[in-house]
């Protein structure tokens, strides 16, 4: 159940990674309207207002930005990306992949599906912090989000 609007949807199954990401965002005051789901299935249910999120929002929930991991149980990030970009209602929502994988096939697939950006999670703490900061500044402050129909 949510009350406020969600600006940033974080889709991440790994608790440690999620904690680090949220910590870095909080540090830069960008975690205010953040919602975290732990797998692809829940992400889709949230966005399309189905399953356990049925009835909230009218037909969709549209965050300003979705931070999406690839390796997740049940429904993978790539599946989620495909559905998001395939549906006219959600196609324009900016999606940024945030993943450990630097492998070519993954990068190719995501861009082919229309991902807006692809960031590799650095192992190093400081580098991670810097990456999240840059991400936040760009996508939450600098970038002009698509026009909200609501």
């Amino acid at each position: 159940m949510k009350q406020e609007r969600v600006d940033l949807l974080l889709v991440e199954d790994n608790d440690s990674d999620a904690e680090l990401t949220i910590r870095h965002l909080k540090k830069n005051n960008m975690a205010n309207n953040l919602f975290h789901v732990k797998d692809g299935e829940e992400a889709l249910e949230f966005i399309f207002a189905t399953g356990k999120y049925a009835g909230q929002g009218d037909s969709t929930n549209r965050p300003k930005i979705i931070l999406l991991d690839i390796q997740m149980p049940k429904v993978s990030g790539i599946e989620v990306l495909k559905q998001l970009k395939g549906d006219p209602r959600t196609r324009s929502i900016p999606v940024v992949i945030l993943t450990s994988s630097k492998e070519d096939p993954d990068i190719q697939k995501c861009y082919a599906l229309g991902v807006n950006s692809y960031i590799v999670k650095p192992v190093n703490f400081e580098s991670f912090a810097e990456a999240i900061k840059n991400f936040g500044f760009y996508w939450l402050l600098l970038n002009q989000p698509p026009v909200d129909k609501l």
Partner: protein
Amino acid sequence: MMLYKNIPIRKKLLRIVFLINGIVLFVTCVTFFIYEFYIFRKTTSEKLSTIGKIIAANSTAALAFQNADDAKEILAALKAEPHIVAASLYDKDGKIFSKYATTARESVFPVSPGVAGFSFTNSYLDGFTPVTQDNRQLGTLYLKSDMGDMYERLRLYGTIVVLVLVISFFLAYVLVRFLQKSISTPILALAQTAKVISDQKVYSVRAVKMGNDELGTLTEAFNHMLDQIEEQNRNLVEFNQNLEQKVMERTEQLESVNKELEGFSYSVSHDLRAPLRAVIGFTSMLEEDYTSKLDDEAMRITSVIKKNTIKMGHLIDDLLAFSRMGRQDGTKTAIDMTEMLNEVITSLSPVEGNGAISWDIQPLPRANGNANMIRQVWVNLVSNAIKYSRKRKAPHIEIGSFDKDNKHVFFVRDNGVGFDQLYQDKLFKVFQRLHSAEEFEGTGVGLALVEKIISKQGGDVWAEAEKDKGACFYFSLPI
């Protein structure tokens, strides 16, 4: 005119038969001729001798009674034999008593009688027969005959011979034409079959055996050879198919192994990094959020934790690069080594540049190899040279090449810290280092990667060094 050996068999047979025919006929006819000649002469001679005896016997009265008219009459009877051209009677004194001649020439008659007997002179047969009565010689008879008879006969024979020759050659020709088929037809058939088979490469055709003679044997042998060719062809095809099958199977195996490895390194890159990130992240969080609660020792401990975890990250990266290099197919192209080297140095310099390094780069030949892999080799060797000579006051790196044993040999020489030549076989093994991590950072995978790449491209790597003087690394590539 064609060489005899190149004439078709049919014509050869014809010529042989004609030749034999001709020779046999010739020998036969000549023999016959000669025989006839001598027989004829003998017969003529005997005949003349007999005529002589008869005339002589009839002339005794004429000679005894010196009756010239009677003698003339008797001689005139010789008219019956047209070939007798002259006859004369001599009395017992050897004087001509009577003459007979078909021509008017006087010199035809010998002056006086000679010895009894007949002989051939020039083209006449002449001779003497004694005229005797009761053992008393009354005179001599001279007879001369021309050879017209014989010549006629011989002419006749000659004509017959020529006719016989013509007819027999004609017959021979016809018969040869007909009979040589029994020899040449099977040969031609076999030759034709062989030509067809070898032109069209159809080995299922067989020659027809036409008899049990040598040609039959040849045909059988020929067919047998064809059987063998067909069988060998079948075997080859089967073998090839087997081989193809094996190659396919082997390729499938290799492909599946490769896929496994790809999956493996994918997992590694993903799943190993996440916990690493967590360890580093949470240790940092500890440092950041609990600074006041941690003393110097605690901070040292957390820093050790982080340092080791970071190193593990590098190890993973290097190992992944190592395994990825092994899986690449390494397509070769011609590489401008000088250009590649300059790019590599430019890309490395900003990172490593501390003291000013003096470079001595000699012109390098073009090489054949996989561009990505060779670039990695240069990166590793040059960054090593930079790293290990960094502590020198005047770091100097020399790069050049020479040719040896049909290969291009490239070297990178530095005046850095060098290594003990004693341990040089460890140099190119994975994770082996000859220096401590405090002195020089590194995972010990760089040189192993170089070795793997170069040996894959068909070359060698080796090194020479002296502790504290410097090191020189060589790698060779086939020309």
